[in-house]
């Protein structure tokens, strides 16, 4: 093969590989992503078995332990619509009533059943000024 054709063949192969990989990237990310929703959205949509990423604030006075599980309610960041959550697994250190959290799971019979260890607390750390004074 003459060098020019060889280079073109290489380019075609490289581009094919790149496009395939990019396609895989886009496809897998959309198919395996979980949607972030507020409590009111989850309550409204409430498709059972569908996986959501619930974000909101932990309702004051709602945290209770029930054996292995932790029960609490998450409310909309603005507003009072809230959903009860049942969670098992590691609780991040900054978890507290009134804090913003993210937890993944499914809605089952009116309760949001969280996946194990999926709780993430947005910590008020670093670059924000603490609200409480």
């Amino acid at each position, binding site marked *: 093969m003459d*060098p020019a054709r060889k280079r073109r063949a*290489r380019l075609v192969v490289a581009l094919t590989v790149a496009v395939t*990989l990019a396609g*895989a*990237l*886009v496809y*897998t*990310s*959309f198919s*395996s*992503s*979980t*949607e*972030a929703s507020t409590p009111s959205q989850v309550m409204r949509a409430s498709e059972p078995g569908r996986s959501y*990423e619930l*974000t909101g604030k932990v309702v004051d006075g709602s945290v209770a*332990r029930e*054996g*292995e599980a932790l029960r609490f309610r998450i409310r909309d960041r603005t507003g009072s619509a809230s959903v009860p959550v049942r969670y*098992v*697994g*590691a*609780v*991040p*250190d*900054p978890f507290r009533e009134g804090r*913003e959290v*993210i937890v*993944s799971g499914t809605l089952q019979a009116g309760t949001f059943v969280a996946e194990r*260890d999926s709780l*993430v*607390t*947005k*910590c*008020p*750390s*670093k*670059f*924000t*000024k*603490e609200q*409480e*004074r």
Partner: protein
Amino acid sequence: MAGVGAACLFVGLLCALYAVGAGLAGARSGRRELAVSGRRAIYCLAGLLVLAFAILEAAYLSSDFSFALVEESSSTDTPTFYKVTGMWSTQDGSLLLWVLLLSLFSSAVLFLTRKSLREITPYATAVLGVVAAFFLVLMVAWESPFDSIAAASVPPDGRGLNPLLRHPAMMIHPPMLYTGYVGFTIPFAFAVGALITRRTGADWIRATRRFALVAWTFLGTGILLGALWSYTELGWGGYWAWDPVENAALMPWLVGTAFLHSIIVQEKRGMLKVWNASLIVTTFVLALLGTFLVRSGILSSIHAFGASTIGPQFLVFIALVVIGSVVLIVSRLDSLRSEARLDSLVSREAFFLLNNLVLLAIALVILWGTFFPLISEALTGREASVGPPWFNALTTPLALVLVLLTGIGPVLAWRRATLAGVRRVLAVPVACAALLAVLLLVFTNAADSIPSFVMFVLVGFVVTVIVQEFWRGASARRSMTGEPFPRALGRLVARNRRRFGGYLVHVGMAVLFLGVAASSAFLKQRDVRLAPGQTVKVGDYEITYREPTAVLSDDREATGAPITLGATMVVRKDGGQTTVVRPARNFYPTRDPRKGVVSRYFEGEANSEVDVRWGLRRDLWTAVRPDISSLERPIAEADRRFADVGSSGLALIVGALLENYRKNPPPATFRVIVSPLVSWIWLGGALVVLGALVAAWPSPEARLRRVRSLYSARLGRELTQPHT
């Protein structure tokens, strides 16, 4: 003093702007004295920022709460170490640290290149000035670290440093990362200078290569320290979570790794010029993006940052850098032609290119995943995100290919490798890897996880390739010079620092990957609720919760926590020897006035002090989450009855409550992790740093060569150009 600090920043901004103007004017007009004054303006900037930094540090050390920043992030009872480092836990203070480091690095590189690269340096000075000016404007206009509190309302005490950040690694980690981010600004600035002046040879690379390597090392160390902090401080037991901010630091590191490899090709073969310029631009933009992500709050993460005022400014700056760089590269394409062509796909340059592509692919995957919430919202209107499983699934195969390339690339010949040559260098390593695979299959359960098994074999391959390189080099030297083997080895490394330092880095990365592969696939973890006396079995370990501990003002790590609740646990391995582990949890008081005086001690921040038993074979990691719900009623009662008791009285009351907890311990929640080979991650990281040091250390021969070439270059110039 706050006024002086603010003035330093303002005058510093003027210096930076002057450096930009003088650099550009000097380059345009060819008047050297202008370019020199621009360089001196950068020195001046560094001096001013050192002064500003010193003023702020002095305020922290003396707990001067008239500085708003000190009041926010320190307090009189904060341990001294955390007073010193409290500055960079704040937005404004970390910006100051960023630009201070930038000015120091800039001064260093401009000093080192003061007698060379006369065409490029003035432009580089201007670029460095622009970057410094941007950060200074942010501080002068929006986020001043020198905001002060009016004398009348200076509080008696500060709010203290966030307890989560009270960890040695966390305090060294931000300066390391910033040093890395900032360090990549240097090659970027020189690349821009080289492009503008069309002096696109390898000169700018030689002048800044070492800075890029140092930046890369710091950034990598910073990332690793962040992982170590996560492992020992966050109480979840992992070292990597694909958190947006972790990703933000990893991306420039990956692209910087690609850059460090491909510049070798440009130096040796005069190829990949467009590629290298693009890579350093990308690295710098990703470093800016990392700095921006931490401050913008656009992505939610553990580092979550809340409202910040400087997000838009960052985006505008990043956009300008991208547009400017692309225009510059495109307009210079004609001077960026390769001096050579790729002769064969089986050559060192081809493998370097391949390694580059894999590194970029990993960076792209991470970029896509990190910004996926924004992409998804823009395309579908729904905010969705991808989790760690997605990142793991996509990066694992790429990481395997990368490790394989690490083994093959460096031993191939430049231009075109012959089959016989390949066979000669790879026969022994391939045989060793095959033997390792058989041994692993027969004696261990490594094949339970296919990716990990493949990784183990590849790591074996890479390590044997490199050991063989060391051995061959040293034997050849010994037979040539008659030196004894150890000395031949030492001299070999000393004479070829880049090459053998690079090999050490490769071994370190292989060891690190070994640790990641083993600990991610074979860790055993239990979350369990135990009453005193109960036992849990994790792997080969039987762990018994013997008794609770509760101490006042005496936490192990000296983070200043008033209350520490913990557990004493007895560990028995295979029914054999026993050890005692003591995980605990520190409670930091809140100043929330809505809480009762006693509740404040229990309802503030709380933070795990995990107990890690490090081992070469495996770590035993334990954390405890004490249940203080049984104390709720006595605490509420104490709140009512002792609402206005003094602090010594409070100590007594809290002491009594802790005694109550110790006497009637409720079950506590534990997390126990047995994680194999996790220490190898840190060992591998240390080896990488060592290798990078070897590679970056100037060798006497190289210095001599440099001096000679400088001299001959100047002589050449003087002979061809008439004096002006």
